[in-house]
C-alpha cells in the first residue's frame, strides 16, 4: 500500500521550477560577452553601441530563459526587474561619466594656490591665477539670495498649509507653480530692467535678487510638502492645551518638520549656486577680488567657468582652470547636500527608548 501512496503523490502546486540565485548575473555576463563578440565581429567602434546591445540581450535573454524554465508569470516578473536594472545603469552612465571627467581634468589645477588667488593681472590665456574672487562672489551672492529667498519661501509655505483658505491661497499656489517654471534668464532680465530704470551699474546683490526669485518657489514647494506631513493630531494636541495657533506652528509644527525644511532649502541653494544666466546679466564678472556685493562687478563660479571657456580662444591653461572651477562647484554643492542630510538626520524626531 505504501508504494501506491508514493506513486499517488502529485507534484506540489506551490513549488515550481526556479532559476538559481546567480542566474541574473550569469545572464548579464553572458549578454556582455555576446555583445562584445557582436561588436568586434561587426566592427562597431562605439562602446555605447556595445552597451546598448548588451542591455537588449540581457532583457530579451532574461525573458526567454525565465520563460522556458519558470513559466510566463515569473518571466514577466523577471523582465520587469531586468528593465529596472538596465534603466538604473543607463541613468548612472552620465552621472559617473560627468564626475569622472570633471575629476580627471579638474584635478590638474585644483590646489591651494588656485583656491586662494584671483585672476587679477593674469591674462585668460596665461597659466596661473585662481578662483578666490569667484568663490567669494558665489558665497556672497548665494548667501544673500538665501537670506532673502528662504524666509519668504518658508513663510509662504506656512501660510499655505496652516492658514491658506479659499481664493488667495489658490492664487498663491498657482503663482508659485508659474514661478517654478521661470527660466533663469527671464529672472535676470526682470532685475536688469529694474536696474536700468534706476540707472545702476552691475553689482553682486542684483544677482542675489534674481537668484532669490529662482529659489523661492523651490523652497515653498518642498516646505509645503514637509508641513503637510506633520500629523494633524499634533496640532490638535497643542491647541487643546490652550496654546495659541502661532505658537503651535512655531513650537510644534515647524520643529517636527525642521529636518525636511532644511533639506529643501539646501537643495534650493544647490540649484541656484550653478545658475549662470542672471549672473552674466547682472554681476558681469570681474577678474579682481571684490568683497563688497553691493557695489561693483563681482565674479561667480559658474560665470567664471563660462568665461574661461569662452574668452580664452582655446588656451589649455584656461580650460584647465575651467575644469578645476567646475570641480570646486560640484564639491560645493556636494558639501551642501551632505550638510543637509546631516542636519535632517540630527533634527529628525527621535524614536529611541
Amino acid at each position, binding site marked *: 500500500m505504501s508504494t501506491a501512496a508514493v506513486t499517488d503523490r502529485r507534484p506540489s502546486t506551490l513549488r515550481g521550477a526556479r532559476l538559481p540565485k546567480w542566474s541574473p548575473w550569469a545572464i548579464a555576463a553572458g549578454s556582455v560577452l555576446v555583445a562584445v563578440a557582436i561588436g568586434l565581429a561587426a566592427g562597431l567602434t562605439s562602446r555605447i553601441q556595445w552597451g546598448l546591445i548588451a542591455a537588449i540581450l540581457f532583457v530579451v535573454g532574461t525573458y526567454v530563459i525565465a520563460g522556458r524554465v519558470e513559466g510566463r508569470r515569473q518571466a514577466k516578473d523577471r523582465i520587469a526587474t531586468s528593465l529596472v536594472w538596465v534603466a538604473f545603469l543607463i541613468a548612472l552612465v552620465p552621472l559617473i561619466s560627468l564626475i569622472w571627467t570633471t575629476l580627471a581634468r579638474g584635478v590638474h589645477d585644483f590646489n591651494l594656490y588656485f583656491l586662494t588667488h584671483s585672476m587679477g593681472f593674469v591674462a585668460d590665456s596665461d597659466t596661473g591665477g585662481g578662483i578666490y574672487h569667484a568663490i567669494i562672489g558665489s558665497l556672497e551672492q548665494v548667501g544673500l539670495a538665501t537670506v532673502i529667498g528662504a524666509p519668504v519661501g518658508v513663510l509662504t509655505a506656512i501660510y499655505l498649509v496652516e492658514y491658506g483658505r479659499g481664493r488667495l491661497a489658490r492664487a498663491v499656489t498657482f503663482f508659485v507653480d508659474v514661478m517654478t517654471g521661470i527660466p533663469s534668464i527671464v529672472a535676470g532680465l526682470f532685475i536688469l530692467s529694474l536696474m536700468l530704470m534706476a540707472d545702476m551699474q552691475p553689482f553682486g546683490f542684483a544677482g542675489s535678487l534674481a537668484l532669490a526669485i529662482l529659489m523661492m518657489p523651490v523652497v515653498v514647494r518642498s516646505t509645503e510638502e514637509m508641513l503637510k506631513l506633520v500629523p494633524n*493630531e499634533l496640532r490638535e*494636541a497643542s491647541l*487643546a*492645551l*490652550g496654546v495659541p495657533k502661532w505658537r503651535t506652528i512655531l513650537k*510644534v509644527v515647524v520643529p517636527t518638520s525642521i529636518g525636511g525644511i532644511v533639506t529643501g532649502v539646501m537643495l534650493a541653494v544647490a540649484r541656484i549656486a550653478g545658475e549662470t544666466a542672471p549672473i552674466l546679466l547682472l554681476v558681469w564678472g570681474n577678474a579682481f577680488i571684490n568683497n563688497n556685493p553691493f557695489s561693483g562687478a563681482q565674479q561667480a563660479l559658474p560665470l567664471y567657468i563660462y568665461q574661461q571657456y569662452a574668452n580664452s580662444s582655446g588656451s589649455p591653461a584656461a580650460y584647465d582652470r575651467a575644469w578645476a572651477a567646475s570641480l570646486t562647484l560640484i564639491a560645493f554643492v556636494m558639501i551642501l547636500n551632505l550638510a543637509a542630510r546631516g542636519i535632517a538626520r540630527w533634527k529628525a524626531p527621535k*524614536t529611541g527608548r
Partner: protein
Amino acid sequence: MAKRIDVSGLTAYYGSHKAIEDISMTVEPRSVTAFIGPSGCGKSTFLRTLNRMHEVTPGGRVEGKVLLDDEDLYGSGIDPVSVRREVGMVFQRPNPFPTMSIFDNVAAGLRLNGNYKKAQLGEIVEKSLKGANLWNEVKDRLNKPGSGLSGGQQQRLCIARAIAVEPDVLLMDEPCSALDPISTLAIEDLIGELKERFTIVIVTHNMQQAARVSDRTAFFNLSAVGQPGRLIEIDDTERIFSNPSVQATEDYISGRFG
C-alpha cells in the same frame, strides 16, 4: 477647579452639514460623565464643542450655549485659547510631541503658554506624572523621547500633559480604544482618581467601560444616516444600564442594534 458645564440648545455644523442638533445637558463637577452611542452619532463632535476644538476643523461652527460655571464659552469676547486652557482634552490616539522628551511633553502646555515659574516646572511635571500613574515607570528616563513609550504609557503621558496645565474639565475622546486591556485598566483606575479633582467627560464605545467608570451616562443616537445626531437621554449610569426610560437606549445597551 472642577467646574459645572451647562449646555442648552447646542447645534453643530460641518459646513452646511448639521452634525448634532439641539443638545441640552448638565455635567456635574467632580464626576465622570460618559457619552455612548453608535458611530457617527456626534458624540465626539459634541465633546469637541465643549472646548471649542470643533471650530478648528474647517467649516466647523456652533449654535447654542455652553455655560462653564455661568460663563458662555461661545459668548462674544471669549478667547478660544483661554477656553482650552480651562477645558483640557485627551485624544483617541496617543499623540505625544515627537520632537520633545517625556519631561518636555508634560511641560509643553506650561512652556508654550509662557505662564510658569521655572523653579516650579520640575515639581509640576513630577506631580502631573504621578497624577497620571506614570511617574514610577519614567522617572529614570525623563529626557528620553516620549514616542519611545508603549501605547498605554503614551496615553498616560498625554493625560499627564493635559492635567499639567490644571484645567477645570478634562474631555476624553475614546482614550482607551487604541489600548490593550491592561493599559485600559490603568487608565480607568486613573479616571477614578482624577474625578476627585476634575470634571471628566469621556466618550466611549465600550459600554462596560461606561458602566465601570462613569457616574452619569448620556446616550446619543441618530434617526438615520445623514441625519444629525441627538441626545436621547442622560441619567445616572445605574439607571441607564438597568432601567432606562427610553426604549432605544435599552435596545442599544442590550445589543438589539448598533
